[in-house]
């Protein structure tokens, strides 16, 4: 119910109750006083009358009695006067004919003179109060009664008019109350309504509005206090929001995945990087059960341990859709949040690249030692043999020294390849920018490879592009790259199978493809073959006389020119290397 109505109803209640109470009390009071007045008058008058009529009754002058009675009744016959003989018979009456009146000896007022009695007069049919007094003769003898009656009617009329006045007053008071309560209600409930609107808007975190402070009373103070509170609330909320946003930004910018799980195995937090490792990377993992978002045994075990307040470091590989096989490092730590339950915090790190580089480095060191040692060992063997055997036949000595010399050459090859690689990689040798026509370069390389190919029983087929393919770069480095691709293809091609060198261009990029029909390379080895000294089939490769650096050099040359080299191959289905370079 509206506030105004409550005030108004209250006012009505108060006015009506007061009116009724006042009216009742006033009426009672008035009536009592009027009746007391009447009674006093009745007693006074009956006494006077008794004195006045005593000689007349003694004289037995009836007409005079009647005259007296009539005169005493007054002009408007407001009083009724009855004169009785001692035996109760009516001698005179102001309102009735005596002959028609019964004996009054047994009327209550007559039997008990000097007292007041009230009853309905049968002759006049109105409520009357009666009083009678004995009439005493001159010799002290009881000779009759003087009875006077007054109607009570006048009192009721007075009461009615008083009640009307009071009710009119009450009505006026009610109207005034209505107006007042409306004004009051408007002054109170208007601001209160606005305050409650603002508060609920604040609760929803929406409003930035403030209340007008209109008065200096309690309501004004309340409005001011609410304004204050709203301002502080919003300030604090802004600070909190800022903090949360900042933390969220920090978390989502982290490359490490962060996953927090409570002791009921529900996910509390998962940052963007963590979501990558989950079953459904698009859905919101928060509040889901851990088993619903991941089945990786190491993660499940890590959470179990951390919830038991243990720390766990682990590493596992994970097949991530779209990313392939990744090595993930996990560290699970317990975190107690105040009095709350313990939370397991998991940090997931993508270690794929680190582990790969570590492997490349260790492999490289192992390989480079091996590659350098092999020719050295054989050189030492031959040279020592020559030194120790002074009687060695000349032909054998020459053969031994030739072998040693070949191995020196091989060492030189490896070292110069390594130096080339280091130079390209470190960028100390800037790529010379000259305009190179790939078609001409490719046919030059193909010619160079032809003799070797013929020796292997392999044919190198050149498929040139339609127009000239110009790139900007280092002619010598590009030639080395193409030579390396061709010599690999020739080396691994079975005799009788062709090697195709194809040039194409899509305008922005030129592509040089070298395809062979050799044994092919398994997919898991395809990325590794570009590493230094990596060999798919170690013995075979060395037997074919490679330094193990060829493809590594090709890739470095491609990158130095802003291009890339890629491989497409399958076991038993040949390989195709594509060298892509931006056109000039």
């Amino acid at each position: 119910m509206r506030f105004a109505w409550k005030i108004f109803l209250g006012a009505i209640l108060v006015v009506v109750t007061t009116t009724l109470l006042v009216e009742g009390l006033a009426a009672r009071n008035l009536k009592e006083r009027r009746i007391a007045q009447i009674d006093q008058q009745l007693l006074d008058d009956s006494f006077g009358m008794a004195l006045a009529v005593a000689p007349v009754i003694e004289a037995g002058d009836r007409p005079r009695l009647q005259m007296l009675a009539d005169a005493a009744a007054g002009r408007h016959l407001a009083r009724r006067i009855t004169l009785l003989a001692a035996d109760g018979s009516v001698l005179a009456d102001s309102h009735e004919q005596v002959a028609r009146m019964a004996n009054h000896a047994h009327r209550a007022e007559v039997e008990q003179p000097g007292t007041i009695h009230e009853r309905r007069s049968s002759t006049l049919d109105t409520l009357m109060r009666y009083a009678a007094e004995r009439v005493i003769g001159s010799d002290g003898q009881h000779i009759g009664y003087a009875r006077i009656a007054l109607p009570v009617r006048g009192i009721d009329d007075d009461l009615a008019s008083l009640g009307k006045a009071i009710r009119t007053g009450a009505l006026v008071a009610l109207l005034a109350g209505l107006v007042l309560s409306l004004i009051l209600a408007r002054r109170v409930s208007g601001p209160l309504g606005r305050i409650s609107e603002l508060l609920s808007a604040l609760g929803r975190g929406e409003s930035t509005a403030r209340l007008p402070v209109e008065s200096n009373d309690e309501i004004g103070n309340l409005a001011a206090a609410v304004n204050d509170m709203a301002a502080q609330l919003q300030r604090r909320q802004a600070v909190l929001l800022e903090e949360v946003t900042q933390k969220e930004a920090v978390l989502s910018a982290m490359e490490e995945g962060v996953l927090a799980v409570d002791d009921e195995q529900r996910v509390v937090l998962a940052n963007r990087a963590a979501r990558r490792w989950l079953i459904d990377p698009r859905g919101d993992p928060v509040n889901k059960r851990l088993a619903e978002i991941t089945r990786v045994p190491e993660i499940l075990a890590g959470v179990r341990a951390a919830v038991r307040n243990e720390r766990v470091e682990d590493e596992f590989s994970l097949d991530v859709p779209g990313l392939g096989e990744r090595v993930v490092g996990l560290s699970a730590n317990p975190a107690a949040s105040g009095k709350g339950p313990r939370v397991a915090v998991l940090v997931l790190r993508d270690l794929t690249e680190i582990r790969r580089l570590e492997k490349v480095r260790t492999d490289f060191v192992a390989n480079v030692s091996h590659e350098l040692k092999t020719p050295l060992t054989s050189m030492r063997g031959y040279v020592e043999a020559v030194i120790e055997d002074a009687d060695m036949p000349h032909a054998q000595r020459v053969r031994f020294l030739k072998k040693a010399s070949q191995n020196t050459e091989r060492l030189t090859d490896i070292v110069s390849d390594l130096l080339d690689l280091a130079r390209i990689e470190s960028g100390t040798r800037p790529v010379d920018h000259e305009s190179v026509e790939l078609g001409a370069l490719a046919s030059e390389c193909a010619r160079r490879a032809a003799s070797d190919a013929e020796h292997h029983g392999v044919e190198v087929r050149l498929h040139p592009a339609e127009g000239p393919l110009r790139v900007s770069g280092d002619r010598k480095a590009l030639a080395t790259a193409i030579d390396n691709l061709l010599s690999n293809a020739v080396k691994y091609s079975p005799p009788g199978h062709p090697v195709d060198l194809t040039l194409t261009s899509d305008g922005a990029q030129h592509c040089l493809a070298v395809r062979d029909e050799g044994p092919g390379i398994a997919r898991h080895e395809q990325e590794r073959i570009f590493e230094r000294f990596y060999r798919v089939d170690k013995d075979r490769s060395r037997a074919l006389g490679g330094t193990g650096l060829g493809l590594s050099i090709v890739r470095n040359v491609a990158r130095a020119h802003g291009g890339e080299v890629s491989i497409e191959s399958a076991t038993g289905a040949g390989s195709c290397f594509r060298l892509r370079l931006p056109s000039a």
Partner: protein
Amino acid sequence: MLRHLHRDLTKLNDHILALGGRVEEALARASRALVERKADLARKVIADDAMIDELELTIDEECLKLLALHQPVAGDLRFITSAMKINNDLERIGDLAVNLAERAVDLSSHEPLNLPLAFEDMTTTARWMLRDSLDALVRQDPDLARRVCAKDDEVDELNRRHFDILMDRMRRDPEVLDAALDYLTASLHLERVADLATNIAEDVVFMVEAVVMRHGAPPED
């Protein structure tokens, strides 16, 4: 009582998924051991199988306890019976991963055969099927489950191709008989893995579609 049942069902679900994770890992390792000829990885798979067997027994016991204690009906009953079947299938896949690992150990001691065998594709597809069937179980996604079933043909086809290539090679060159037989068995194992993954996917479809039916049909519980 009902709350206990649901808590136990959630736990059962978690355990099934944990078992799934272990089996996935075993299959992934066995696959890598086979393709990359890594005997040590294969031996790890063989050693870890005991954990899978143990988890399978635990889940089986849990299922029986749930059935006996709560006498579930309708959807819950369907969930438990499906869980028992999936549990069984997962354990079988775990065993097949061990068999595959044993072949890998054997093969790593032989010379590689230069044949266009697609074990990399085959293991990848089989692993994806297992992964997707379990994802479908997690997400209660019958569409994903149906896609798993559709992939089964791919693996069957690869298996047929392997059979042809290997038989041809064995006829021509009986010296490689051991290695070729190893490959042939491995191919058969992978084909079985795909079949079991399909079974799991089918169970998921049954589970989910029945749940959907429960909402439309007259109340059963």
